[in-house]
């Protein structure tokens, strides 16, 4: 199967950057520790902020660190390759192939995500478990739901990043759009601060945007805040955004190839 082969090779390709992986694990761990102490202080001041207790909050921090690179929250991953190929015109080669670009790059990104989950996801979590009290899912359903929600989070993130990369067809360079999109992602995914702490309408808005599907939703599933039908609803929320965004990707790509010149001779 082509897509499996693509994903496997992307996994292998990322696994060649060992030093970068180790440095990344170190960074994730350091930020995990800093955030943990900040959150502990925050929840000491308000022990039930956002409906989390202190242990939930610390768990939230380490899950966020684990997911950060897995979903490539602020960009990076295979969509950066795409943006670069659009900029240089190499995307023409991708378009000469008898496969859709969206599926191809998604497969590659899932391979990358698998690698980052195993390394940048699991390794810092071990540090977190050793240094802090991290709560485990209290039901098999929550654990299974969490494992299911990760690939969905990756697809949602991929959809947004792919759209950002496609801006290069019009803007010639996607760097600005990528920076803006990264900032939005950090804020609206719940990475900077859990969305449950956002007040009133802002919280409602933030929890309905696609970024929520990347960090907040998987974390809340782990923490057991979605159970029964609500758990299915949370997963359906991710599926909905994944489908909408992938649809947009196909649309934008079709528009780009119809209206826009692929750069270079």
């Amino acid at each position: 199967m082509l897509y499996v082969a693509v994903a496997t090779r992307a996994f292998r390709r990322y696994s060649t950057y060992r030093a970068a992986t180790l440095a990344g694990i170190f960074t994730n761990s350091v930020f995990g520790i800093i955030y943990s102490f900040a959150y502990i202080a925050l929840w000491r001041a308000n022990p039930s902020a956002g409906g989390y207790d202190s242990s939930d909050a610390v768990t939230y921090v380490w899950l966020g660190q684990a997911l950060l690179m897995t979903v490539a929250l602020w960009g990076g991953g295979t969509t950066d390759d795409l943006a670069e190929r659009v900029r240089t015109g190499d995307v023409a080669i991708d378009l000469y192939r008898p496969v859709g670009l969206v599926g191809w790059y998604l497969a590659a990104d899932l391979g990358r995500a698998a690698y980052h989950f195993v390394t940048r996801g699991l390794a810092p979590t071990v540090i977190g478990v050793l240094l802090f009290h991290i709560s485990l899912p209290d039901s098999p359903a929550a654990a299974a739901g969490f494992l299911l929600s990760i690939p969905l989070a990756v697809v949602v993130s991929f959809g947004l990043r792919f759209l950002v990369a496609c801006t290069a067809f019009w803007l010639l360079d996607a760097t600005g759009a990528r920076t803006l999109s990264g900032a939005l992602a950090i804020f609206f995914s719940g990475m900077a601060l859990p969305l449950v702490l956002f007040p009133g309408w802002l919280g409602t808005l933030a929890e309905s945007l696609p970024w929520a599907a990347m960090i907040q939703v998987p974390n809340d599933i782990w923490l057991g805040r979605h159970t029964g039908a609500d758990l299915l609803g949370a997963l359906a929320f991710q599926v909905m955004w994944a489908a909408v965004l992938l649809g947009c990707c196909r649309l934008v790509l079709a528009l780009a190839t119809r209206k826009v010149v692929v750069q270079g001779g």
Partner: protein
Amino acid sequence: MTAPPLIDVVDLERTFDVRRRVDGSRRRVRESVRAVHDLTFSVGAGEMIGYIGPNGAGKSTTIKMLTGILEPTGGHLRVAGLEPQRNRVELARRIGVVFGQRTTLWWDLPLQDSFDLLQKMYRIPTDRYRANLDRFVELLDLGDQLDTPVRQLSLGQRMRGDITAALLHDPEILYLDEPTIGLDVVSKGRLREFLRALNAERGTTLVLTTHDLQDIEALCDRVIVIDHGTAVFDGPLAGLHAQGGSTRTLVVDLVDEADPISVPGATVRRVEGPRQWLSFPADASAAPIVGAIAAAYDLADLSIQEPDIEDVIRQLYQSGDRA
């Protein structure tokens, strides 16, 4: 009844809207630029076509339309019976593309891995894939490079890898864009030989865009010259000489100095002691001229200089500019 042409282009047109700043003002005007217009030609299966023209003439725009990654704004276009833009993915299975300056291989992967991915991508049956791969690896001498990551290959090796990659799925048409650019003379020669054999054995249609006129002379029976977005010449290479008004030069060394030679069909361009330079149309035979001179003068030596095809094409471009 003749089969329909493999590539059929009628009155093809592509315009681009560009915004241009008016000099000395902040206003920007929208302008329509015709990159390709009134372009008509057809290519039969098994032909080897040179598609040449100066930079910016519309070569790449044409190729992008032929391969379906750019939509024409006017005219009729069919490749292998398909409308390229609408059937891009289906068409992609039937064509191969090679760029001299880009690679279709995966930079970080060994050559073999790129080929394996292509097999899956083009759904090539395993026995055919193995047979093609073995054959191309042998012909292009890639056996020792299969496990090398593409980024570590030399330009010549990478190019041969790219050609293999473009041919694994037995494409009906192979587009080559500057395939020999940057290659040394030996590699160029081997590549041309390989392409000629490919065309002879498999009937693969070749469309070659290049600035290297030796590629054209070695490979193409027919050239289409495009300038300012439209074809200014379409015919055999020999005809290009006639149309470009190109001439061959006969260099005559006489035993004794003489007045300028007067023979029908040739004119003296230069006289230097016993040596004289005569020019005559490139498509005319040199034999009667040489015969006439030999009958009237004592000859010490003579030689013929072939026209420089680059000059011929330059003349064509210039006549296009004047038009």
